[in-house]
């Protein structure tokens, strides 16, 4: 039975790469409308694989990804209009200015020129990027490029934004700006899948977190419930305890 507050559902997904590596082992989760869903786990847990599958970059081996009760694979092109992907590496066109990058991104999603302009102005203002719009991408630092990649992911007003380690390598004050922006997305009803290594980030931003280890979901809950059930003050301490218990087993 499909609940009306769920935007996307991952059902028993396994992923075996062509080389034979099994990255996901029967993962199931739901992402609700307007929530920030934190995906946590150690290196090699399968976080990027899962976010890539949800971003429709790679296929599942078995299982299903559903959006509003229908498989995303039934109408993949329309599904892609509903998502925005911000990958770990800031993969902008280095020869173009940032504004040109955003203009092309808007065109890929079929936006009109006036709508593109409106979105660029809005997002550049939100991210304090206006004065960098005319800069060539190769001239900007990694942090600014990363912010532009997030902006690019939002240009077509997706309903689900997939942020794969969005704050890696960013200065602390830019991280905080980005946190505000993610909170703002939630308030606008946009769902966010946030893959992160930073547990403070997950704790502050996520409505629910999902801990993934060796391709399996260990648990999914709110940060507050996790802290209560483990008797810890910080999510980071919960995570460390869980990982050490897992290692002992």
């Amino acid at each position: 039975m499909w609940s009306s507050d769920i935007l996307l559902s991952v059902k028993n997904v396994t992923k075996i790469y062509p080389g034979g590596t099994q990255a996901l082992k029967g993962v199931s989760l739901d992402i609700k409308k307007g929530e920030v869903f934190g995906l946590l786990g150690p290196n090699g847990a399968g976080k990027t694989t899962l976010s890539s599958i949800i971003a429709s970059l790679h296929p599942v081996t078995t299982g299903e990804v559903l959006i509003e009760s229908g498989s995303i694979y039934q109408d993949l092109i329309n599904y892609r209009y509903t998502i925005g992907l911000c990958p770990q590496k800031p993969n902008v066109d280095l020869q173009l200015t940032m504004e040109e990058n955003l203009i092309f991104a808007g065109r890929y999603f079929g936006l009109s020129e006036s709508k593109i302009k409106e979105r660029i102005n809005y997002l550049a203002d939100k991210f304090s990027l206006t004065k960098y719009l005319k800069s060539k991408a190769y001239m900007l630092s990694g942090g600014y490029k990363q912010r532009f990649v997030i902006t690019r992911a939002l240009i077509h007003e997706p309903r689900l934004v997939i942020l794969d380690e969005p704050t890696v390598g960013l200065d602390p004050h830019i991280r905080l700006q980005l946190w505000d922006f993610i909170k703002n997305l939630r308030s606008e009803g946009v769902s966010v899948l946030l893959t992160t290594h930073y547990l403070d980030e997950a704790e502050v931003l996520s409505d629910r977190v999902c801990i993934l280890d060796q391709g399996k979901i260990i648990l999914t809950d709110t940060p507050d419930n996790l802290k209560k059930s483990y008797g810890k003050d910080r999510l980071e301490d919960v995570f460390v305890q869980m990982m050490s218990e897992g290692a002992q087993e």
Partner: protein
Amino acid sequence: MISRAFIELLNRDLYLFRFDYFKAIINSMIWLFCQVIVSNYIMSAMGMGGKYGVFMLAGSIASVSLFRSINTIPILLNDIEGEGAISYYLTLPLKQYLVFVRYALSFAINGAINTISVLILSKLLMWPVLDLSNFSILKYAIIFVITHLFIGFLTLLIAAYTPSMRYFENVWSRIVFPMWFLGCFQFNWLVLYKQLPTLAYISLLNPLTYVLEANRVAFLGQTGYLNFWVCCLVLIWFIMIAAYFGIRKFMRRLDCIC
């Protein structure tokens, strides 16, 4: 239906091409100019026929586009190994195989623009001294399109089967150079057949033989070369083969959704 995203990706590639346009033309013209000067003046003094300059011009124009296109493979490989802009394209609202078709068409269009510019410049600089009394515009227009589509999809195929940048040197030494040099670049197929029939038959498996022969027919007339229309049909077949295997390999390599 061709999606808007596909058209805009091609548009983006053309937009970026303007940054390299003059560099590409200068590089191509230097190569072409050297080829024609040597073949038209030096080689004719060594006993080659008076039309050897045009003969080389026809082959060289097709070759410069091929070389330029092959030289873009490292950009694609670097992207796959590095920043991964291709991952972004593969999540755009279009079928994933179209991302690879777009690469091939971009290679083809860039090559075609390069060729048109080089042709115009060649005419201005060199054609007064070259005999082009047998030049056929219709045949050249046909082989022009086929040649560049072939170059685009051949580049895609080679890129798909090149595991990483480390192996790019091998592409030149083991694939492109033998294909080009034994593919009737400095001689026509009939001469090869008279001298080394076995090699001539083997070279019929080499698509560049058909590219160079058909281009020469357009410049010099049919006599002495492989049949123009047969060359066109064989090249269309090669385009389909290169497209199928190039796209399939990339789809598997990047674990795309079929």
